[in-house]
C-alpha cells in the first residue's frame, strides 16, 4: 500500500527533482496514512532520500538500464508497484518521466494526472489540481481508477525535509527483449551547462537583441547566475538560437525560481509557457511591452546598456556574498 515514487538519477547521482517528488510522495503518504517506497535505478547515493520522508528504497542495479529506455524503466516501476501493492505512483515531469508515465499507466491500468501542482484531495474522488491550457488555467482532475499515477510539475511542491530512516533493498527485475524495441545510439548532452528543465534561474532573450551575434552578454549573464539560457519563438524560428532554447506554449515550459526576460515583448503564448516561474524580471526599452503586466520586477531601458551593467553588479554581489 506504500506510495511509490520514482526518484531519478543521472550518472549515478540522484537529481534534485528526486527529492522534490519524494517530499510530495511523503505528503500523500501522510494523507493516506501509509509509507513511502522509492525506486532508484543505477544510483549510488540513495540513502539521502531518507531525509525527505522515504521509508524504503528499492535499489535497482542493472547494466541493461544504463541508458534510459522508457518501456524498460516503466516495466521496473510496474513490477515495483505490484510488489508494494501501491495505489499511488509519483513521478517528476522531466522529459524521461513524461516519456514513461503513459506506458506505466497502461501497464498498471491506472489513471494518470500530469502537471500536478498540489497534493491530491483524497476524500473528494481523489482530485488533483493540475495546470491546463499551458498554464493559462488550472484544472481539478479526479482519478477514478484503483491505482493512480501522478506527474508532479517541477518546482511546484518544493523540498520538504522529513527525517525517517530509509531501509535499502536490492530489487531485481525481469526484463524481456520486448522492453528494448528502442535502441539509443548516442546521447548528445551539454554536461557543463544546466538544462532549462533543471535550472533555478533562466535567462531568456528575444528579438530585442537584434541579432545572433549579440548573445555573448546573455550567455555571460547566465554564467554569472548559474542559469540556463532560453529564447523566444521568433528568435528560434529565425535560427538565431537552437529550437531547444525556445520556451513558450509550443516550446518548453519554464518553472524556474527566477526568469529574466530581455528584449522579449511578451506574446500571450510566451507568457503562458513561463508563467509557472516564481519570480519574473523583464528588461525592455518599450514600457508598453505586455511583459511588464506579467512580470514581478521590471527595468525600462536599453538591453545593450542595462545587461552589461547588471553583469558587473552581479559579479560584485556574488563576490561579496559567497
Amino acid at each position, binding site marked *: 500500500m506504500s506510495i511509490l515514487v520514482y526518484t531519478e538519477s543521472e550518472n549515478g547521482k540522484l537529481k534534485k527533482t528526486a527529492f522534490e517528488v519524494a517530499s510530495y510522495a511523503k505528503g500523500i503518504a501522510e494523507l493516506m496514512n501509509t509509507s513511502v517506497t522509492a525506486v532508484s535505478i543505477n544510483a549510488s547515493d540513495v540513502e539521502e532520500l531518507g531525509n525527505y520522508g522515504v521509508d524504503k528504497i528499492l535499489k535497482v542495479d542493472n547494466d541493461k538500464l544504463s541508458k534510459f529506455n522508457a518501456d524498460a524503466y516503466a516495466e521496473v516501476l510496474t513490477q515495483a508497484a505490484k510488489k508494494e501493492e501501491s495505489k499511488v505512483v509519483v513521478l517528476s515531469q522531466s522529459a524521461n518521466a*513524461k516519456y514513461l508515465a503513459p506506458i506505466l499507466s497502461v501497464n498498471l491500468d491506472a489513471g*494518470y494526472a500530469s502537471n500536478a501542482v498540489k497534493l491530491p484531495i483524497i476524500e473528494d474522488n481523489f482530485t488533483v489540481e493540475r495546470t491546463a491550457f499551458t498554464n493559462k488555467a*488550472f*484544472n481539478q482532475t479526479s482519478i477514478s*481508477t484503483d491505482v493512480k499515477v501522478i506527474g508532479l510539475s517541477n518546482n511546484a511542491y518544493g523540498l520538504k525535509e522529513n527525517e525517517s530512516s530509509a531501509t535499502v533493498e536490492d530489487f531485481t527485475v525481469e526484463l524481456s527483449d520486448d522492453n528494448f524495441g528502442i535502441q539509443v545510439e548516442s546521447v548528445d548532452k551539454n554536461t557543463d551547462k544546466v538544462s532549462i528543465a533543471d535550472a533555478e534561474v533562466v535567462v531568456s532573450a528575444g528579438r530585442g537583441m537584434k541579432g545572433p551575434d549579440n548573445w555573448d552578454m546573455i550567455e555571460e549573464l547566465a554564467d554569472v547566475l548559474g542559469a540556463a539560457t532560453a529564447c523566444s519563438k521568433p528568435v528560434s524560428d529565425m535560427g538565431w538560437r537552437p529550437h531547444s532554447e*525556445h520556451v513558450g506554449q*509550443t516550446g518548453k515550459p519554464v518553472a524556474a525560481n527566477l526568469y529574466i526576460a530581455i528584449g522579449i515583448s511578451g506574446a500571450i503564448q510566451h507568457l503562458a509557457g513561463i508563467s509557472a516561474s516564481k519570480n519574473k524580471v523583464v528588461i525592455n526599452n518599450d514600457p508598453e511591452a505586455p511583459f511588464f503586466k506579467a512580470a514581478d*520586477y521590471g527595468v525600462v531601458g536599453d538591453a545593450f546598456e542595462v545587461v552589461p551593467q547588471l553583469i558587473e553588479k552581479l559579479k560584485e554581489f556574488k563576490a561579496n556574498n559567497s
Partner: protein
Amino acid sequence: MKILVCISHVPDTTSKINFTDNDTKFDTSGVQFVINPNDEFGLTRAMWFKEKQGASVDVVTVGGKDTEPTIRKALAIGADTAIRVDTEALDGFQVAKELAKVAKDGEYDLVIAGRESIDYNGGMVPGMMAKMMNANFVNTCVSLDIDGDKATAVREIDGGKEKITTTFPLVIGGQKGLVEESDLKIPNMRGIMMARKKPLNVVEPVAADTHTKAEIFRKPAPKGDVKLVDADNLDKLIDLLHNEAKAI
C-alpha cells in the same frame, strides 16, 4: 508505408481562455479552433514521406461533428483520407484507446501524434496508444527518417538530444523540429477544393471507459503590479531579487 496522423482540435494559441457552466467547461464562444501545433509539425513531416517516399497518409481525430473543419484542413494540406471517431474526447486514456483501435484496424506502420495537445496538456495519448498497440514509441521527437524497415529518430531530452533507432509499428510524440515552422503549409484553393471530395469516414467509437475527469477549472489569480526599477539603479534590482524574492 501507411502513416496515420492523429489530429487534436484545439483552441488557437492566441485564444482567451474562459470557462462556463460553473467553471466546468471550456467556453468555446468566439474561439477559433485549429490543428494542434504539435500535430501539425507531424502532419507536415508525414506529407514529406508521402511526396518523397510514396507513403500514404490518413488523419484521425476523436470528436463530434464540430471537429470536422479541423480534419478537413488536414485533408487540404494533403492527407488522403480522414477518419473521425464519433464521440466526445473525455480523457487521455479514452482517446488513446479509440485511436489505438483505428491504428490497429488500419494496420498502420507509423502513427504520428503530437507530444501533447495545447489545451489539456495531458501528454499521454501517444505513449498510451503505443503500449496498447504493442508498438515502439519515441516521445518529444524532433527528427524522423525512414529507411526500409528501420526508423531513425532524434528525441529531445532535458539539456540535449539522443539519437534512436527502432522498427515498426512505431508511434511518435512529435513537436517542432520534425519540420521547421517555415515548412508548415497553408492550404491553397486547389487543396481546399480537393479536400471536399476526399473521404471523411465517421466511425463508431469502441466506447472506451475513462480514467480521469476534468472537474472544475480556475484561472490564475490576478497578479500584483510590476515593481519598476530605474535603469540607473540596478543595485536596487539586485537587492529586491536577493532580499525580497530570495531568488539570488
